[in-house]
C-alpha cells in the first residue's frame, strides 16, 4: 500500500464515510453510518452515491417489514484507496506535529508569534 492523496476521498464527509467503513466492520447500516459520522440523511445519500459510482463503496438495499434499509461496505479498490489516503494523512499529521515541535523551543521565524509549520514533501504535488 502506498501513502497517497485521493482527491475523491479527501473531502471531509467522504473521508468520514470511507474511514468508518474501513474501521473493520463488514457491512454498516445507513443510520449507523449517519449517526457515527454526524451528518444528515441527504448528505450521506449524496456522498455515498459518488463513492458508489467510483466503485469504492458497495450498496445493498433491503427492507425490514415496510421500512427500507440500506447497507454499505467498502469494495477492495475502495479499501486500498482509503488505506493509502489515511496513511498519507498520518504522514501529514506527523509532519505537522514534528514541525511544531521543532519550532516550539523558542525559535520564531520572522513575523510574530505564529509557529512556522513545515509542510511534508507530499503536499507539494497537491
Amino acid at each position, binding site marked *: 500500500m502506498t501513502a497517497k492523496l485521493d482527491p475523491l476521498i479527501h473531502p*471531509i464527509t467522504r473521508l468520514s464515510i470511507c474511514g468508518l467503513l474501513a*474501521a473493520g466492520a*463488514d457491512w454498516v447500516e*445507513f443510520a*449507523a453510518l449517519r449517526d457515527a459520522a454526524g451528518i444528515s440523511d441527504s448528505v450521506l445519500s449524496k456522498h455515498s452515491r459518488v463513492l458508489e459510482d467510483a466503485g469504492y463503496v458497495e450498496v445493498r438495499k433491503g427492507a425490514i417489514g415496510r421500512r427500507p434499509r440500506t447497507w454499505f461496505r467498502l469494495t477492495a479498490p475502495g479499501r486500498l484507496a482509503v*488505506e493509502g489516503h489515511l496513511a498519507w*494523512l498520518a504522514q501529514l499529521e506527523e509532519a505537522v506535529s514534528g514541525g511544531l515541535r521543532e519550532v516550539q523551543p523558542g525559535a520564531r521565524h520572522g513575523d510574530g508569534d505564529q509557529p512556522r509549520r513545515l509542510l511534508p514533501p507530499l503536499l507539494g504535488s497537491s
Partner: protein
Amino acid sequence: MRDVAQDSAALERLRVQRSRLADRMRPPWWWWSGVATLWALAFACPVGSRFLPQGYRIWPILAAGVAVALLLQSGLARATGITVASPMSRHPSGRPAATAMIVVSVAALVTEAVLIDRRLIAATIVVAGLAVVAEIAAQQAQLRGIRQDLRAGGGAA
C-alpha cells in the same frame, strides 16, 4: 493551498467517529439471553442424549439451536447496524477470546462425557453451568476486542 491544520485534524475527527461507531456494537439484553440459552442447550446435550426417553432425538433440537443462533446474529446486525466478519480472520483483538471459546467448549464436553460415564450427574450439571458462564465471559471479551479494533480502525489507520 490546502489547509494543513484541517487536514491533520481530519484523522482526529475520524478517531472520534470510529469510537462512536464502536460504541454501537453493544448487544441488547435479549441477545445475551438468547446466547446464554443456546450455550446452556449445547452443554445440556451430553446429559440429554444419555437420559432422554427412547424415541427422542437430539438432532432436531440442535438444528433448532443453529436456526436460533442465525436469527440472533441477524437480529444483532439489525439492532446495532453493523455486521462483522469472523473475529478469527478480521479482528485480531477478538482472536484470543474466540480461541478460548473453542477450548472451553471442547474441555467442557469431554469432561461431561467422562463424568457421565462415572454417573456423576450433579458434577456434570455443575460443569455445564460453569462452561456457560465461561462462554458468556469469553463472548463479552470477544466483543470488547471487536470494539477495540473498530476504534483503532482494524489496522487501517
